[in-house]
């Protein structure tokens, strides 16, 4: 029996409902999360009602625009970014060979372990008096503190990568009498790449925070020092403005790195393909 007109209408309606439903579902959960965050912040600012304690998101946004127009925010961001990347670069340069040797030699691992454990547990403030005496307030102290913070993390990750090398691959290489330099390049370095990338991924978040704290206490430029000055003059909206930019930049950096990694996945470079 053919469907009567009202039934057909019903069918059309239900399709429409489905479409509406799927449009609702298309809003990504992370956007809902961000909206909730701003809502909580707004409510808190409304309840406290004192911008000296918690400024509203609107005030902070206005402050960000003002600071950009004054030409303070972007140079400060660039300086913090430069110091962070330099710190990460130095930590990778020192940490990668140490990590590789640590992964290969148990004895070397035992020699190095106490130093890395001390580095890992040492609070940032404990370095401050020494670095200020050596370099004064400047760019060196934040870079030094970033390096010392990231170094143990990178060393342990790389060592773990080397330890996870498939011994069967090494045996295969020995069967075919492959030269040691080629074994090192293809197998050892190849296996450490995913661990190196994961340590950079973890380092990105840590280095940003550490850089700002170090600048706050011993720097002369960057977001940290701007936050320090704003705090000194009790300009809480400015503190929030610089902090928000720092947090957003951290997210952006991690997001870009993840994009880079997924591009590498697609190109087929790596064990994870």
């Amino acid at each position, binding site marked *: 029996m053919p469907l009567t007109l009202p039934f057909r209408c019903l069918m059309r309606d239900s399709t429409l409902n489905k479409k509406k439903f799927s449009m609702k579902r298309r809003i990504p959960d992370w956007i809902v999360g961000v909206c909730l965050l701003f809502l909580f912040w707004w409510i808190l600012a409304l309840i406290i009602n004192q911008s000296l304690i918690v400024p509203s998101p609107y005030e902070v946004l206005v402050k960000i625009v003002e600071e950009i127009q004054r030409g303070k925010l972007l140079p400060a961001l660039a300086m913090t970014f430069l110091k962070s990347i330099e710190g990460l670069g130095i930590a990778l340069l020192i940490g990668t060979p140490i990590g590789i040797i640590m992964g290969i030699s148990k004895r070397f691992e035992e020699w190095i372990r106490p130093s890395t454990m001390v580095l890992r547990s040492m609070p940032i403030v404990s370095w401050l008096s020494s670095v200020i005496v050596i370099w004064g307030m400047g760019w060196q102290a934040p870079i030094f503190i970033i390096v010392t913070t990231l170094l143990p993390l990178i060393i342990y990750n790389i060592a773990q990568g080397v330890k996870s090398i*498939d011994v*069967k*691959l090494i*045996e*295969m*290489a020995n*069967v*075919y009498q*492959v030269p040691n330099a*080629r074994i090192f390049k*293809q*197998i050892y370095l*190849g*296996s450490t*790449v995913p661990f190196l990338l994961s340590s950079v991924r973890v380092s990105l978040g840590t280095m940003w925070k550490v850089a700002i704290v170090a600048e706050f206490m011993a720097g002369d430029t960057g977001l940290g020092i701007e936050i320090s000055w704003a705090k000194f003059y009790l300009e809480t909206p400015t503190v929030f403005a610089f902090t928000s930019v720092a947090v957003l930049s951290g997210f952006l950096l991690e997001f870009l790195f993840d994009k880079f990694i997924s591009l590498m996945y697609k190109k*087929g*470079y*790596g*064990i994870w*393909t």
Partner: protein
Amino acid sequence: MDLTIKTTSLSKSFGDLQVIRDLNIDIKKSERVAFLGPSGCGKTTLLRCLSGLLTDYSGQIQRQHSKAGFVFQEPRLIPWSSLYNNLTFVTKDEKRIRRSLELVELEEFGKHHPSKLSGGMQQRANLARALIVEPEIIFFDEPFQNLDLKSNIKLMEAVKRIQKQQKWTAVLVTHGIREAVVFAQRIFILSKKPTRVIKEIDMTQEEETDFFSRKTAEYERMILEYYE
């Protein structure tokens, strides 16, 4: 008669556990030999002794070959390198690499990473790697074990075809009776641990068998009787 391997009273133990006991075997040049035995009888240990990967055995092994290839149970390809780079890892001779890839019919897959290849293709790549050293002998450590029947047949055909062309000696260890029958011209049936040869079957006078021939089934039945 040209021999490529001759063992005299070969024995091997790991601590108190004797794995191989008093083994006397001759392997001729250019022949295909299979060592057939139940799982865990010490076949791989025997292959490692014969190939020189294990050296702390008692008895004697005389080897008359200088260049050997090894086809492992698992492909042992470097996962983050393309198939082509897996072969350049062993030799930089591009001509030999291209020739090996052609022989195993993987010439179009040089740029592919191992994860993009099927299990059968990975095992053929494993074979290609053994071929680029221009071997006089190739040791096969259960290379057919993890493959489906179709891939098994294709790999077996490739091995036999290339072996007949290039005339290297092929030594296979396996627990698959059918694979041994199809592959080998001579089969050594091994006992449980400590392993020794319980029967030698010479099939050099027989015509070629395949996975589905009646002859293969008959041999299979016969060999099963020797399994303890």
